[in-house]
């Protein structure tokens, strides 16, 4: 609708020109702002895993080398575990209620009637939560290194590969929770249930490596049990077992397909 003439005399003060961004970039920028406006989520995803590591380091026994851990210390194990905790918090606890609310409150429908697909909104959220996981991983690694002298991962490419697969598995699990939750409340409930199970399997309470054999074999089948094993192996210098990486990839594919099929826009 004509609201103002767009041509102005050359002498007139230049009107402020809106910088044109691509639609996907505009969505990502807006969602990033919104993401940063959730101090609770930021704390639990970004700060809490590092805080946990610092607290655990106050326990003297955790800083002593243990023979049954191959000469490593408990605190060494808790660096990858804290990273997994960040992923679980971001993808399973924080993300599903956000996306489910976007559907429940008609935000996706509103976007559907613009030239941009609502999937841009979902992708932006998934990307942001993934990025927050990786930022938290970096912080945990730095804190472990500086505060407790935890060695950096010896098999770095293997470690990064396991890390990325774990993030992907976590995010698809979170997406799956969105897909099966009708309401944001349901997503919070599902998320919290999954959160506790995933924390256990990631080894937050008891490192997977310290679990009894029978339990460990079961936990290794879960995405975070597998991730925990893969990260520990890479941290101590060997290439992560293909079986663990394969389990992670399989979970990602299966959950991703299921979430995409089950997800409803409205």
């Amino acid at each position, binding site marked *: *609708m004509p609201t103002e003439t767009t041509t102005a005399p050359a002498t007139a003060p230049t009107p402020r020109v809106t910088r044109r961004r691509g639609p996907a970039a505009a969505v990502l920028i807006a969602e990033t702002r919104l993401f940063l406006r959730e101090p609770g989520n930021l704390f639990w995803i970004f700060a809490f895993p590092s805080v946990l590591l610092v607290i655990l380091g106050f326990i003297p026994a955790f800083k002593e080398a243990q023979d049954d851990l191959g000469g490593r210390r408990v605190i060494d194990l808790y660096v990858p575990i804290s990273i997994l905790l960040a992923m679980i918090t971001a993808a399973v606890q924080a993300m599903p209620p956000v996306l489910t609310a976007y559907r429940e409150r008609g935000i996706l429908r509103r976007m559907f009637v613009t030239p941009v697909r609502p999937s841009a909104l979902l992708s932006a959220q998934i990307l942001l939560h993934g990025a927050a996981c990786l930022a938290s991983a970096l912080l945990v690694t730095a804190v472990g290194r500086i505060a407790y002298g935890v060695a950096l991962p010896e098999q770095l490419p293997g470690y990064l590969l396991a890390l990325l697969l774990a993030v992907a598995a976590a995010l698809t699990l979170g997406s799956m929770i969105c897909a099966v939750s009708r309401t944001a409340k349901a997503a919070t409930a599902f998320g919290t249930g999954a959160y506790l199970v995933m924390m256990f399997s990631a080894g937050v309470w008891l490192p997977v490596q310290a679990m009894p054999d029978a339990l460990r074999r079961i936990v290794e089948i879960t995405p975070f049990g597998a991730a925990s094993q893969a990260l520990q192996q890479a941290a101590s210098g060997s290439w992560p077992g293909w079986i663990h990486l394969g389990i992670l990839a399989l979970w990602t594919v299966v959950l991703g397909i299921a979430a995409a099929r089950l997800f409803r826009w409205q």
Partner: protein
Amino acid sequence: MAIIEVTGVRKTYAGRDVVDGVSFSVDEGEIFGILGPNGAGKTTTVECVEGLRIPDAGTVRVAGLDPVADHDRVTRLLGAQLQESELQAKLTVREALELYAALYPAPVDWRPLADRLGLTDRLSTRFAKLSGGQKQRLFIALALIGDPKVVVLDELTTGLDPRARRDTWKLIEEIRDGGVTVLLVTHFMEEAQRLCDRIAVIDRGKVVALDTPAGLIRQATGSTVISFAPSRPLTGPDLARLTALPGVASVTPPDREGALTVHGTDETVTPFVSLLAGLGVTARRLRITETSLDEAFLDLTGQDA
């Protein structure tokens, strides 16, 4: 020229025809109303126009395009304000306007738009903190921001106070005066009568009438209302002759002040006057009025008040 054409659209949910063969066409530059009781299928019908729902049968065209198959092109031509949709709670008005402007290839400048909608002093307010009226005005802005040819407004003034409602009506007229076609869903009679060039009345999934507001009133049975107090009580045979006059739909018995009400048509008036003269009765407090769109609506949709 028709910019929206809806032909024989049908939509069934759980075995029930929510929309049952709806057809209408909206000409460029008009304000076209879809009026009907709650649950009549109004929203489902416009959701088919917006491409949000796929009709089970029938066709929908917006500027000749299919809103489902050509969804992308239709979204550039059609701005929508949806019933019961929200924005991200912590998104500010400015951010919402900037975001939605960036989604369109050739948006209008959002600043004058925000100014016209009285949102300029709310630019830094988050969506969740806006009042109902401010949210509605923001949604109108978002519907217009892509410089559309058509806007679909669904229950726009529901929940607004009378003053905000009147302001919104003025705005809708301005939108139309700017050359945009408006498809307006409402259940407010006054709103439809004031704004719409033409109205489709939808009831139980069907178009039961399609006309100008004045035309709808004429279509309703008993659209001319004659009320009078006879100078002497009318006898049974008098009343029978009154009821038998051309076009009479009903005669209401005298009220406490002795006034009768006759629902008829234009044709009723002259024979009515002759009959009274013949009976030697004078009509006191005689009033001849047209029924309101309200009553025409109730008549057309077969609803009790």
